[in-house]
């Protein structure tokens, strides 16, 4: 259904969205690229001339760079493993017949709607506080010394908080996938005498593979740029400085725009590598 007229109308109607996004992408990106080659220190007189590739070299060779990459990877990896594994278990569980299924689902999904700043603050103060936090009470109840979560076990703590936020997303999508599983196929396998583990391994898991990929890829995009959870809990201290946070500090706290921008370019490259994979997969599904 397309005539010349509708095609040109379509182009017109697509234009605002395309132009806006193009501007949104290109303008800041160009500026970041420009700054990354400049010695730009707003607090000390602004642009102090070209820096060549200095910023890029300095950013990578700074002692905080590799630790921040490592932290980022551990954080993203940890959250992915936890949410996917628990997500599968929860999805299979929620798919079983039970009373009050709708309510349980609502309970499980709730964390997704909680603002990141809220969840970080609540976890930090009301659960992980070494004196008055709920965990401290539990530890004391069992006669153990309360843990100073956010300083002694900072990364696991943040992984826990972020996983709590993202588990609902993983569960919801995996549940949708589980529900589309052909029950006759499962029954046939049961008739053939396949025990649960085998059914899970050879039927359920392959069926979920596409959903799992999607969960991993979408979450990765969001997790790479995790900000509020760190901003509110540790402020980047105790080894929780991710790449995103490091750049944020360079830009806002040290006011070294050149250096921060070079970091930004690295982050953009990293995100684009991930994006490429995501696009491949989502793109395939477009035709289906």
């Amino acid at each position, binding site marked *: 259904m*397309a005539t010349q007229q509708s095609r040109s109308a379509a182009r017109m109607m697509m234009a605002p969205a395309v132009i806006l996004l193009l501007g949104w992408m290109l303008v800041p990106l160009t500026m970041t690229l420009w700054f990354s080659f400049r010695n730009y220190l707003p607090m000390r007189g602004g642009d102090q001339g070209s820096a060549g590739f200095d910023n890029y070299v300095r950013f990578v060779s700074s002692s905080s760079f590799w630790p921040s990459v490592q932290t980022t990877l551990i954080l993203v990896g940890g959250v992915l493993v936890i949410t996917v594994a628990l997500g599968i278990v929860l999805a299979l569980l929620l798919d079983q017949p039970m009373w009050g299924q709708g309510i349980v689902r609502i309970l499980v999904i709730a964390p997704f709607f909680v603002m990141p700043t809220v969840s970080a603050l609540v976890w930090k103060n009301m659960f992980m506080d070494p004196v008055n936090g709920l965990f401290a009470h539990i530890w004391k109840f069992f006669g153990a010394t309360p843990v100073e979560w956010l300083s002694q076990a900072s990364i696991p703590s943040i992984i826990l908080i972020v996983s709590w936020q993202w588990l609902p997303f993983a569960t919801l999508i995996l549940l949708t996938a589980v529900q589309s599983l052909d029950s006759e196929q499962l029954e046939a396998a049961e008739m053939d005498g396949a025990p649960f583990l085998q059914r899970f391994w050879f039927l359920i898991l392959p069926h979920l593979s596409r959903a799992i990929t999607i969960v991993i890829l979408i979450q990765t995009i969001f997790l790479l740029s995790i900000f509020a959870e760190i901003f509110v809990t540790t402020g980047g201290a105790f080894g929780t400085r991710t790449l995103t946070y490091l750049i944020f500090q360079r830009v806002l706290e040290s006011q070294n725009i050149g250096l921060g921008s070079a970091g930004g370019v690295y982050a953009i490259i990293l995100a684009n590598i991930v994006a490429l994979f995501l696009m491949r997969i989502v793109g395939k599904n477009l035709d289906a």
Partner: protein
Amino acid sequence: MGQITLKKVSKSFGDVEVIPPLDLTIEDGEFAVFVGPSGCGKSTLLRLIAGLEDTSGGTISIDGNDATEIPPAKRGLAMVFQSYALYPHMSVRKNIAFPMRMAKIDQAEQDRRIEAAAKALNLTDYLDRKPGQLSGGQRQRVAIGRAIVREPSAFLFDEPLSNLDAALRVGMRLEIMEMHKRLDTTMIYVTHDQVEAMTMADKIVVLRAGYIEQVGSPLELYHTPRNVFVAGFIGSPQMNLIEGPEAQKHNAHTIGVRPEHIDVTEGSGMWKGTVGVAEHLGSDTFFHVHNTGLRDMITVRAPGEVSFRHGDEIYLTPKADVIHRFDEKGLRIA
């Protein structure tokens, strides 16, 4: 008014030419049917006339005015779609009123036309329902009602009955024909069903792979098919097309004999064969006759009371004056 003329109209999708340049005129008040197997370009041709697709070349004129560049909304044509394409969020009344609302016709006139259309189509009791609450046949009527109230210069039907069950289809066919007689407006009707084409049309346009194979009245097509394709496509059961020595006897590459033009006898006749399946319709009986040496199977239409059985040997005799002859290219030999 509603004369539609196509001159050298063609359509390509990318490199694929689905309709090579063709000429066609549909006269005012005519009931024209585009018929052909699926993929023959009949729906595309209709959509070109509607303006839902651009032509790749040629001109379409409506009542003598060039309409090639006019958007569908302004061509003054109404279309009934295969899926009915009713607006699911509007009541039947609103659906029917929609084209008038777009044309800014005043409310009193709208109401008058809706009442008239609803009465003619037996929809009066359903005006306040949503399309989802209607049966297939009723939805079809709403779609037709929506077309009628516009008072278009021509109606376009795109396989409108193919989603209905057989019984309803016959009923709707009659209703559409009666509507045509009453309104006396040009109608172009697309179908793959040659029975619909034969029963409804003033003029049939047989299409294959974008080419017009023949244009004519149903009886012209039946009696003088221009080529083997039309011969085989028009008429039910299909014409028996015979090649080889038997055809050469008639100085032709192919001869065609319609099932109803063959006499069946027990004793003697021109061709001998064995009865395979016999389809008893009551009024008629169709015999599938094998082992004639002419082709796999010859279909014969005999009166209902003729009762041969599976395996019976019978003799067939074609009526000599209605044997159709075709040359190597498949064209009719006069």
